[in-house]
């Protein structure tokens, strides 16, 4: 058993280096890989081999996590193309987009005052989902291009997606909380 831990996740899974991923093929390849490195197969092996198999298994799991999630996949793809993510130091200053984010946050904070809070939060999630879909389409187009100018745009697009995902997960946890209270 030998894996090249330095190869990228796309090659590890034997799929094209692209934003659009065939999830079925990805999962099938994942199961195959996991079988090869499964710790049970190394129960009687040397300690070094067991350690290696664990390392490979972790690498494969991390690869799946990244490739399965559109946002993580986009970040990873851009990283392969040389984009650097200085998350802590980056500020987004697109007023129109931020205004939209602020309005969404505002409506989320006012959900409890609505006559039907569960429906109100569901509406927000639907709205955010639509914005996420629209942004994913934009991102897909930008990632297909080799134009360096478009790479910068793709980077910005990923930043926006980060906001939207965060917004969505907050809306979803509020929804779960409201449903619990019913």
């Amino acid at each position, binding site marked *: 058993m030998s894996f090249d831990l330095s190869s990228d996740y796309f090659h590890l899974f034997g799929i094209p280096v692209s934003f659009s991923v065939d999830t079925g093929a990805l999962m099938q390849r994942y199961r195959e890989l996991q079988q090869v490195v499964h710790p049970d197969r190394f129960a009687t092996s040397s300690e070094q081999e067991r350690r290696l198999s664990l390392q490979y298994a972790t690498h494969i799991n991390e690869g799946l996590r990244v490739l399965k999630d559109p946002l993580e996949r986009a970040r990873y793809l851009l990283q392969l193309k040389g984009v650097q993510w200085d998350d802590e130091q*980056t500020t987004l200053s697109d007023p129109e987009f931020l205004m939209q984010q602020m309005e969404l946050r505002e409506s989320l904070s006012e959900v409890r005052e609505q006559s039907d809070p569960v429906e109100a939060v569901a509406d927000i999630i639907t709205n955010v989902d639509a914005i996420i879909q629209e942004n994913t389409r934009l991102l897909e187009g930008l990632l297909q291009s080799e134009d360096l100018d478009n790479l910068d745009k793709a980077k910005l697009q990923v930043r926006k997606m980060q*906001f939207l995902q965060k917004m969505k997960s907050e809306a979803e946890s509020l929804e779960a909380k409201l449903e619990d209270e019913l």
Partner: protein
Amino acid sequence: MAYSEKVIDHYENPRNVGSYDKADTTVGTGMVGAPACGDVMKLQIKVNEQGVIEDAKFKTYGCGSAIASSSLLTEWVKGKTLDEAREIKNTEIAEELELPPVKVHCSVLAEDAIKAAIEDYQNKKPG
């Protein structure tokens, strides 16, 4: 995560929360966001004819440190000239609030917000 007492104070009693009409030519609006945590910050300054910041307001959706950073900043900029306000560094905010390293980006956000607000005000001014 343990917040410092100063962060908790600003978080529980945020100063200067609110909004101005952003079309007002005496108002500068700075909108910034931190992709790392999804925080959104709006900081507005009201500037008098002498170029001094008379008042400031903010609205922040985010963690305690982001709210505290913007709240503190609105207090600091009042009475300052635009040039003085532009000189405020995120490190001063982080130091005052005793922000842990993982929360320093919240103070970066506040510094970027005041700079954006000053720029917005200056872009609005005729001539």
